C-alpha cells in the first residue's frame, strides 16, 4: 500500500470526484465499446481481408486496401453513390417544402390543431416496408391506380411502366419517401414555428409588412434552427436509404435506382463477400459520420444559439 501525500484538499477532492465519475460512467462506456466501437473496429479489420463465406478454400487472406481499391474502381459503386445523392437531394428538398407548408397550415389553425397534428403523424408511424409495398401497388403495371387514373383522365394514352423505366422509377420511390417523412419534418418545423413570438408579427403588421415580407423576414430566419435540424436529420437518413427502395424497385431497372446501402447489402448479405462488403460499410459509415460531425458543429456553434440570443 502506498500512501498518497495530499497535495491540497481541493485537488484531492477533485481527483476523487473525477475517479468516481469515470467509475460511474464505466458500465455505460463498456456497453458502448461492446456494441458500437468493437463492431466498427472489427468491420474495419474485416475490410482489409479477402473473406468470402462461399469460398472457404480461399481462406481469409490479409489484402490491405485491395477491397477499397476495388470499390473505388467499380462503376456500380460510383453509380450507387450518384443514386444516393439524387435520392437525398430530391427527397429532402421536397420534404422540406411540403413539411414547411404543412407546418404553416397547421400553425395557422385556430381549432383542432391537436387532432390534425396527431393525424398528420400517421404516415410516419407506418413501417417503411408497408409504405413501400402500398406505393408499389399503386404504381403497378397494368391495373395500378395511378396508370388507371392517368389513362382515364386522358393525361397519357400510354402511361409509363414505372418500375421498368430508369428515370420514371424514381417517381414512386421519392413520392413514397416524401409521403412518409414530410409529416415528420412538419412536426419539427411546427415546434419551431410555435416558439416564434407573435408580437413580432403584430409589430410587422403595424409597420405595414405584407404577409410575404413577414414570411421571408420573420418566419424563415427564426425558423432556421428547426429547418437545419430537419435538413440534417433527413439528409443523414436519406444517405442510408435502404428499405423503401429494396421493397419498391430492388434497385432496378438494371441498377438504375440502387443506392449505396442496397449495394452493400447485396455484396455483404446476398453474395456474402464479408471483406468487400465491410469495405463498403466502412465507406458509408465514414461519410455518415462526417455528415453528422458537420451537423453537430453547425448546430452546436451557431444555428441553435444565434436566433435565441
Amino acid at each position, binding site marked *: 500500500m502506498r500512501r498518497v501525500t495530499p497535495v491540497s484538499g481541493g485537488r484531492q477532492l477533485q481527483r476523487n470526484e473525477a475517479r468516481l465519475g469515470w467509475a460511474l460512467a464505466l458500465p455505460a462506456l463498456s456497453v458502448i465499446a461492446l456494441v458500437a466501437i468493437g463492431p466498427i473496429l472489427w468491420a474495419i479489420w474485416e475490410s482489409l481481408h479477402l473473406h*468470402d*463465406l*462461399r*469460398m*472457404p*478454400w*480461399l481462406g481469409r487472406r490479409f489484402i490491405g486496401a485491395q477491397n477499397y481499391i476495388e470499390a473505388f474502381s467499380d462503376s456500380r459503386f460510383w453509380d450507387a453513390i450518384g443514386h444516393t445523392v439524387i435520392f437525398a437531394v430530391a427527397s429532402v428538398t421536397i420534404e422540406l417544402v411540403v413539411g414547411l407548408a404543412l407546418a404553416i397550415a397547421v400553425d395557422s389553425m385556430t381549432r383542432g390543431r391537436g387532432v390534425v397534428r396527431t393525424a398528420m403523424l400517421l404516415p410516419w408511424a407506418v413501417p417503411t416496408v408497408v409504405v413501400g409495398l402500398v406505393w408499389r401497388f399503386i404504381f*403497378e*403495371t*397494368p391495373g395500378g391506380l395511378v396508370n388507371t387514373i392517368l389513362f382515364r383522365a386522358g393525361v397519357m394514352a400510354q402511361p409509363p*411502366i414505372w*418500375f*421498368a*423505366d*430508369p428515370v420514371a422509377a424514381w417517381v414512386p420511390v421519392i413520392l413514397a419517401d416524401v409521403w412518409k417523412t414530410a409529416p415528420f419534418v412538419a412536426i419539427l418545423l411546427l415546434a419551431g414555428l410555435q416558439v416564434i413570438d407573435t408580437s413580432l408579427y403584430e409589430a410587422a403588421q403595424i409597420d405595414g409588412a405584407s404577409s410575404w415580407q413577414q414570411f421571408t423576414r420573420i418566419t424563415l430566419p427564426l425558423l432556421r434552427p428547426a429547418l437545419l435540424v430537419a435538413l440534417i436529420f433527413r439528409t443523414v437518413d436519406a444517405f442510408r436509404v435502404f428499405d423503401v427502395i429494396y421493397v419498391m424497385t*430492388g*434497385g*432496378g*431497372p*438494371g*441498377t*438504375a435506382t440502387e443506392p449505396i446501402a442496397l449495394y452493400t447489402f*447485396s455484396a455483404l*448479405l*446476398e*453474395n*456474402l463477400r464479408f471483406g468487400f462488403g465491410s469495405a463498403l460499410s466502412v465507406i458509408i459509415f465514414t461519410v455518415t459520420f462526417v455528415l453528422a460531425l458537420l451537423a453537430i458543429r453547425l448546430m452546436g456553434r451557431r444555428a441553435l444559439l444565434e436566433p435565441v440570443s
Partner: protein
Amino acid sequence: MLRKLCRACAYALTAIAFVVTLGCSRTDPHVLTFAGSAVGKEGEAIRLQLDRFGKMHPDIRVEVQPTPDAANHRHQLYLQWLNARAADPDVLQLDVVWTPEFAAAGWVLNLDRFHPQVEDFFPATLTANRWNGALYALPWFVDAGMLYWRTDVIARPPADLDDLRRLAADGMREHAVPFGFVWQGARYEGLVTVFLEQLGAFGGEILDDRGRVVVDSDRAVDALTQMRDWIYTDGIVPAAVLTWQEEQVRLAFQNGQAVFMRNWPYAYSLLQDPAQSRVAGRFGVAPIPAANSGSPTAALGGSALAINANSGDPGAAYALIEYLLEPAQLLERAQLVGEYPPRPTMYATGKLGDALQINPSEARRIIEDAVPRPVTPVYSELSEILQIALHRALTRQQEPRVALRDAAAAMRKLLERFELDATPR
C-alpha cells in the same frame, strides 16, 4: 452491494452456459434431421414419408427442420449453419444451382462413396449436381421451362421462333388477345432462366464446356436483341413483363390475356382449375421453339438432396435419401404436391399422368430438352451480373451487345478472383 451484483452475474452466466451446452449436446446419436420446404402440401408430404421411413428403421428418428420458403433466405441460413460446421441438419434439400457451391466449399459429402444408382435420372439433373466429376447431390424433383399456348386462339404450337412471333401477332389481331407472349422479365433469377432458353434457341451458351465465359457471343447478342425487339418493335410482349415474376405472368395468361406464356410446370394444374382459370381446357404445352442456329431449350430447375459433410451418421442419411427417391415416394409427392420426378421411366406410367394432370410423354419431351444453368460455385454472383445486364438491355439503358460485353467482363473477373478460371470440370 457490488459483490451481490457480481454473484448475480456469475449465476446468470452459469445458467446461460448450462442452457447453451444443453442446447448443443445431442444425446441420441440416431436422430436425423432433414432441412427443406416444410410448409403447406410439401410439409405434409415430407412428414408423411419421414414417419414411414422412421417406422421401417426403428433405431432412427427423423426430425424436420423447417427452413424459409424463399430460396435466397434458405440459402443464407444453410450457409450460416454449414460455415459453423454444425452437424445438423443431416440431409439438405438444395436448389439445383447450389450444389457446386456447397460441394466446392466442402460442406456436402461426395456421394460416390455410396455407389448411387444413377441410371434412371434425366442426365441434365445429374450434370447439375456434379462438381469436379463427383456427384454431390441426388435429384429429387425437376422443373423445366415450357411454352403454354392457347388452343382456342391458334391451331398449333409454333415450329420455330419466327413462327411464334407470327402466331402471337395473329392471335392478338384476330382474337383481340391483349398480349402475344408473356414471360418472367423482372430483374431476378427467373429472367436468367428465360434468357437461357432463348440463348439455347440461338445456339449460344453462358459458359462453354471448359468453363470459359462466352455470353458475349454473336448468338447471345441475337437472342437478347430478339427479346428486346419482341417488346419494342414487334409489340408481342408487353413492357410490363419487365416487372413480372412467375405469378404475375400466370395471372395474365390465366385471365386469357396472352396467346403464349413461358412458365414452370407448377402452373399447369392451376390453369386447369375452372374455379380460378378462364383458360381451363383451352391451353396446351409445348417445348419452347428454337431459331435456325440452335435447338429447343428448357431451363432446368428443381431440388436435390445432399448430406451435410459434418453429419454424425452419413450412412443413415444416405438411406433416407435413397428412400425418398424411390419411385413410390416420388409418385406420392407428384400426387400431393404436383412436383415432377427426376426419373424418366416413371413417365411411361399412367399413374404419373393422373397425378400431374399432364400428358406424361409430352412432359418428358420437354424435360429432356432441359439444360442446367452454369455449373459453378459462384453461380449466384454470376447470375446477379447477368440479371443486371439483361434488365439494362431490356429496359433500353444499354444496347444488348454492350450489356453482354460488360457482363462477360465482370464474369471473367469474378471467376479469376475465385481462382475458378482454370478449374477442370
